[in-house]
């Protein structure tokens, strides 16, 4: 049909771009995992399973994977706990300038991620706000080491991901029919019960979408551990970067990339079976 063909014409540039820049590279990457690493920057198409064997047997990689999953999970859960409350407040409040609260959630998206991340140095560092304040009051004598720890990395990631969580939950809350709440209250629920039985279950899709998005973005992060973490706080993304950009071991770098891609793909696939992928970004596209 002519209509259909026209739709494909419209899609063509985006499609070509995505096939060449996204699909093709991932296919090449999969092939590369079977190449043999000779020396930095040199590899041969010998089709060996050595990279995969190394990945599955060397506990070094498993530790990285485990640490990344743990840090990403802590980040996502902390975002859920910290993000639900403001979303609930914005939804419930009778405050006249609700738009201002929503606008303030969008503003961080406009501020450079790099700047937002390094600004934590001024809070957590030895010359940072917390240490300087505590020392001037006399509670501590020497600065506490907070920067360049796993905690600092998690803090930075929460700071970056929180707006995604709040917006996702808020969109979900907005979809709830408020009459249901009044009904629950008239039928004798306390406000805590009404929240537990009505509001919370109905806002779960947004909460889950936020959890998934935060987990995936945290698990793939590279720059936050670079700026706020020490050497021991490197995550899987840093491992990939170092393997490729420093060791120039392309076959192993490809193997690690495919591992991360597949694992995060599984997480997203499980989610999209239940929710649909586009819910995740509803919060952002408003």
């Amino acid at each position: 049909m002519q209509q259909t063909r026209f739709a494909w014409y419209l899609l063509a540039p985006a499609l070509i771009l995505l096939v060449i820049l996204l699909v093709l590279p991932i296919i090449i990457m999969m092939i590369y995992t079977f190449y043999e690493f000779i020396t930095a920057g040199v590899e041969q198409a010998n089709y060996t399973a050595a990279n995969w064997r190394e990945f599955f047997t060397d506990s070094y990689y498993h530790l990285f994977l485990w640490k990344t999953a743990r840090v990403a999970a802590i980040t996502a859960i902390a975002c859920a706990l910290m993000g639900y409350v403001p979303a609930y407040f914005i939804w419930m409040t009778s405050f006249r300038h609700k738009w201002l609260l929503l606008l303030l959630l969008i503003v961080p998206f406009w501020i450079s991620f790099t700047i937002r991340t390094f600004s934590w140095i001024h809070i957590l560092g030895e010359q940072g706000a917390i240490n300087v304040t505590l020392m001037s009051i006399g509670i501590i004598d020497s600065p506490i080491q907070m920067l360049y720890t796993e905690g600092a990395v998690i803090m930075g990631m929460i700071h970056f991901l929180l707006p995604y969580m709040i917006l996702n939950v808020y969109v979900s809350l907005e979809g709830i029919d408020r009459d249901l709440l009044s009904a629950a209250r008239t039928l004798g629920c306390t406000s805590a019960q009404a929240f537990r039985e009505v509001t919370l279950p109905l806002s779960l899709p947004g909460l889950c979408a936020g959890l998934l998005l935060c987990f995936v973005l945290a698990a793939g992060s590279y720059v936050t551990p670079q700026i706020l973490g020490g050497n021991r706080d490197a995550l899987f993304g840093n491992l990939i970067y170092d393997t490729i950009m420093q060791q120039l071991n392309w076959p192993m770098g490809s193997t690690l990339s495919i591992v991360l891609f597949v694992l995060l793909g599984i997480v997203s696939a499980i989610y999209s079976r239940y929710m649909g992928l586009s819910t995740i970004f509803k919060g952002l596209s408003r």
Partner: protein
Amino acid sequence: MKVRQAEDASGVWGWRAVKLLTIAVYVFMFAPIIVTVILSFNASMFGGFPMTGLSLQWYGKLFQNEAVLRAFKTSIWIAILTAIVCTVIGVMAAMALTRYEFRGKQLMNTMVIMPALVPETILGVGLLLLMKWAHQPRSYLLLVLGHIMLALPFVVLVVQARLIGIKRVYEEAALSLGASRFSTFREVTLPLLMPAIVAAILLVFTISFDNITASLFWRPPGVETMPTQILAMLKISISPEINALGTLMILITVGLPLAGGLIGRILFGNRQ
């Protein structure tokens, strides 16, 4: 209809806790940024506390820093190019995905969102590998194309959301009166779509200007974009210059859209 909060004791206390926690979260989100802005006016030679006096000297230093100026120019040009091309491609794709029915539409929808879900590290490695495989050097073109891919999902989503709200009857009326598809788009759809397009352009500009992870992989040898330049400076020391740079960038990336929105409100009236 408004739900009344203050009916039982647990509700009252619960609501107070919610209010307090909300304030705490907003403080958490903005305190580090505000501290950076304040420290950029610090006269001290070191990037942190204590404040030793007010000074604008670090801003002056910034404008004499060749590397920073070069990185700034590079980023601006890449962001402008990305914003224009990505918005055009994205609007076309969004039109196809909302206005037409065809086989494989669901798959296309997913594919267009993909770049936003795949970690940037993987996208970064993938594109480098493609270049290696094709024996091509890393170039500015690669950087721009990569940024276009990264920002595409956001354009499509923003434009789609608006397109769904535009009634199809307007376009059908124009078509049935003999207008071509292109002039229907230009005369009817485009004007109605304008707010979304402006929003998309600004969004793409920020995404590109702000991108760091993928840019670290893709930048041509010896080239720094604004964020990678900041990262390079951070590795040397936390100098007050970085605070000044950060403050200027916040002023640009937050000030522009806010000013744009404000001017829009004044020109087109206050529409909620």
